[in-house]
């Protein structure tokens, strides 16, 4: 009973020696090593990898939990960061569905094994289509940035043109991705914004539009949180140059904000993360693209598009891939861009979220975000020398707070907030130096009045205080 052999690993049943021998016999090989004979001797790795030895499940869980305990999460601290990843409430049903072992571990089966996956994604497409009020939505891509890049490439293919106009207020992080996806074929040209309002400068837009313009891309709400109100004018201008209008949108706004299709967008894209995804340190992002049911556009999607069809049995819904031959799966480099594993589970989850909230929920979501963020702007604006919001536009969810006149840098304010259990807004001073000491705050439905008041109180305190570090160093922040 005590002379135990090396046990099989729980994840690898056939580490049992007798089984290995039996299988080798069957194959007609003597050793497992023999099976690797096809690899030239010189390429055999002879050393032991420097990776610690196996942990049992309990040891592993204690070890990993120990590491994770070094994090401080947004349930522990009050969070006002947004800037592309937003702190919304995730209904428990969303988690239940995406943690179901079936959905969690399915992959690329046919509708005959994975009917449920196909239906759930078809439903996601359909629900999202209602939110943006367009007839075609794809199986999700990676994130907003990549969805935007693909939308731009679609526009470029459709128009045969090689230039895209984008607003200067675009998220720098997102822009990096778009640029990389567009280069070398498509050039990114930037449109100025109106200094007071942040809105796209229509004159500049008109100046830059040309017969080279494949598309005008803009966002609503913008990265800096304000609502771009001249959507209709922008898309008309674009159309007048036969350019395509692409609008990136935060779907959590669409219960109250007009969907871009209502002001002339040809392609709508954005991120699903607000619709039921935990932030996951950024791992909840998921991109969508929507268009009208127009062959010209549909055939340019690189993504899978699931369609509905009857089966040979009366009453059954079947599903399958629409125009599969567009894809790189079918045509390799001749296909439209590329497709592969993206973020399907988040698509299913977003579908669950939209089903749960329904039209009223989406309206209330938007409304409560409008109310709470306006309240926060008002309260923050009451702090002497704090300007909230920096831009004279209407904001949704996010807004720029200007600390330039407080004698404190955003960095200092954020450090003070952190010391008091609050994650302050995104520091914009590097990305947008022209704005001075500005910070992007995000308020959603999860913030109670007390949360906002606490933020305001703490910032007030911070501004009133001479930071202890300053005291220690005997210097004052200069800005």
């Amino acid at each position, binding site marked *: 009973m005590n002379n135990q052999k090396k046990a099989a690993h729980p994840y690898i049943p056939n580490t049992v020696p007798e089984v290995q021998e039996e299988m080798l016999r069957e194959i007609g090989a003597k050793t497992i090593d023999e099976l690797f004979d096809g690899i030239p001797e010189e390429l055999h790795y002879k050393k032991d990898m420097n990776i610690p030895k196996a942990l049992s499940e309990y040891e592993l869980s204690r070890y990993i939990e120990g590491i994770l305990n070094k994090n401080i*999460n947004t349930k522990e601290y009050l969070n006002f960061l947004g800037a592309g990843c937003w702190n919304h409430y995730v209904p428990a049903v969303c988690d239940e569905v995406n943690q179901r072992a079936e959905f969690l*571990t399915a992959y690329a089966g046919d509708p005959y094994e994975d009917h449920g996956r196909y239906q759930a994604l078809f439903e996601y497409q359909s629900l999202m289509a209602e939110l943006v009020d367009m007839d075609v939505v794809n199986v999700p891509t990676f994130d907003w940035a990549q969805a935007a890049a693909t939308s731009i*490439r679609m526009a470029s293919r459709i128009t045969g043109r090689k230039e895209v106009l984008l607003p200067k207020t675009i998220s720098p992080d997102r822009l990096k991705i778009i640029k990389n996806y567009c280069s070398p*074929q498509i050039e990114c040209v930037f449109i100025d914004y109106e200094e007071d309002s942040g809105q796209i400068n229509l004159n500049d837009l008109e100046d830059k539009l040309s017969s080279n313009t494949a598309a005008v891309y803009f966002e609503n709400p913008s990265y800096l949180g304000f609502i771009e109100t001249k959507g209709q004018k922008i898309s008309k201008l674009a159309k007048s140059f036969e350019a395509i209008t692409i609008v990136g949108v935060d779907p959590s706004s669409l219960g109250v904000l007009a*969907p871009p299709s209502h002001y002339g967008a040809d392609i709508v894209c954005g991120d699903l993360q607000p619709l039921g995804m935990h932030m996951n340190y950024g791992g909840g992002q998921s991109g969508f693209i929507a268009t009208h049911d127009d062959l010209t556009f549909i055939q340019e999607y690189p993504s899978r598009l699931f369609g509905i069809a009857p089966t040979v049995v009366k009453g059954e819904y079947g599903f399958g891939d629409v125009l599969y031959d567009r894809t790189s799966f079918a045509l390799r480099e001749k296909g439209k861009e590329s497709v592969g*594993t993206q973020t399907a589970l988040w698509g299913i989850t977003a579908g669950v979220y939209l089903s749960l909230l329904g039209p009223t929920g989406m309206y209330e979501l938007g409304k409560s975000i409008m109310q709470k963020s*306006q*309240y926060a702007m008002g309260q923050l604006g009451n702090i002497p020398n704090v300007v909230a919001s920096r831009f004279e536009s209407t904001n949704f969810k996010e807004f720029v707070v200007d600390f330039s006149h407080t004698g404190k840098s955003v960095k200092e304010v954020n450090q003070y907030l952190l010391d008091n259990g609050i994650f302050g807004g995104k520091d914009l001073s590097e990305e947008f130096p022209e704005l001075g000491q500005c910070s992007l705050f995000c308020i959603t439905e999860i913030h109670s009045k007390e949360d906002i008041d606490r933020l305001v109180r703490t910032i007030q305190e911070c501004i009133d205080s001479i930071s202890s570090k300053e005291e220690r160093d005997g210097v004052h922040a200069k800005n």
Partner: protein
Amino acid sequence: MVYMQKINRDHKVRNYHQAKWDEPIIFELHKIGERGVTLPATEEEITNNVGDGVSAIPLEMLRKTKPNLPEISQNRVLRHYLRLSQETLGAAFNVEIGQGTCTMKYSPKINEAFASSPKMSELHPLQDESTVQGMLEVMYKLDLCMREISGMDYFTFQPGSGTQSLFTMASIVRAYHEANGEGEQRDEIITTIFSHPSQAATAAVKGYKIITLYPDKDGFPDIEKLKAAVSERTAGFVVANPEDTGIYNPRIKEFTKIVHDAGGICNYDQANANGLLGITRAKEAGFDMCFFNLHKTFSTPHACGGPATGALGVVDKLMEFMPGPLVEKQGEKYILNDRLKHSIGKVRSFQGVPQTVLRAYAWIRALGAEGLKDVARVAVLNNNYLYHKILNIHGADAPYIKGKRLEQVRYSWEKLTKDTGVTTEDISHRMADFAHHYWSSHHPFVVPEPFTLEPTESLSKADLDEYIASLTHIANEAYTNPEIVQNAPHNSTIHRVDEQDYFENPEKWCITWRSYLKKTNKTETINS
């Protein structure tokens, strides 16, 4: 007859039926007035202070009618999706062999517990570094493990998949040559036909001309063709090894040398590295970059097709081209370094999909160096066992060089189809009747009537025997009762989609429910 008798279980194939719930489309569950979840009420003080909030929205930007979403109670939404889940054959449920090239392995449950912990899921990606030291530690330590496994010098986990890794590699190739002033000149990337289509496709996205090598008679990319292809226009070479055939190309070092000599960069697609862990490495084979799919070799769940992660490693000289930021260790602290001189910028928002990085790291730690090697050894053992058995099935074959294969094989039913008219697609449908996945191949079908199987280390001999028994059974059916195969599936949630052009004809395709309603409004109901 007094005693209990043994219940006869000698059936050779599983007596299976998939759950069939006949669920309507979610819109059909709409009942006006129902709610799935309610939102927190805005406090009265706030309402008093700012009003209804929406009035502030400029009129032209106000949504005029609510989105036409269904209204459904929570119970019913949940019931709907739970039912759909049962109609999905997740890897956790079947003898997962049939999605060849996908490395469908066991995703340990403990790793899900980590990933769904609020300590992971409730982190905002822009939090101060001091508050995400645990997260950064995991990323850093996985990097170290990956270096061991590959021989590369730095890893990024930003790419969201294998495809995005390939795109990132193509981007780095471009940036590298541009930095050397050869950006314009080097405009070709060489790949192979048995490689994943994304290799060619992503290189094309990065503006490259694609040169595709076809297999020689043994199934290897034709080395003579490679020699002919390289030139001062060669920007890079991208290949998997083994390719979908499962045959390791023993001359791989010659390949990389040929490309290097021509000034190109060599990229190794290691999405499926399952047969190679601890056995052989990218570095020694001469590659400059490689990537692993954490959702394949490293066990993170496939999630219906993502979120996922491609772990991309590069040799030293390419480090400055990587997408930023990288996680580094400074003394006792982990930091994000975003100061890479020639960085291509980014490919995915923030830091990619960190919860997947966490899972993969936990998986590696559950195995250790020895366990990782066992993964490769058993994956290869399992595959050769399967291969051996399938070659004995009447009508089945595996083209190209005989002898051992590594972690997967592309087979062919060419003979069976000729003999019986039953195609690989028919067999695919019939396999569903026994709870099996079964994948043919990417296009084009270089191998006729192909099927591609990849048993990982997660399966036992009994599992393999079950899969083999199902294939054997169907091959017999093909010879004796082909209709049953050709009319399959019989035990799935649904039956065959009616053979019309529902997915090719713009008048018929319906990519959304609203589109279906619009199009069918113009017609009669069918009773197919």
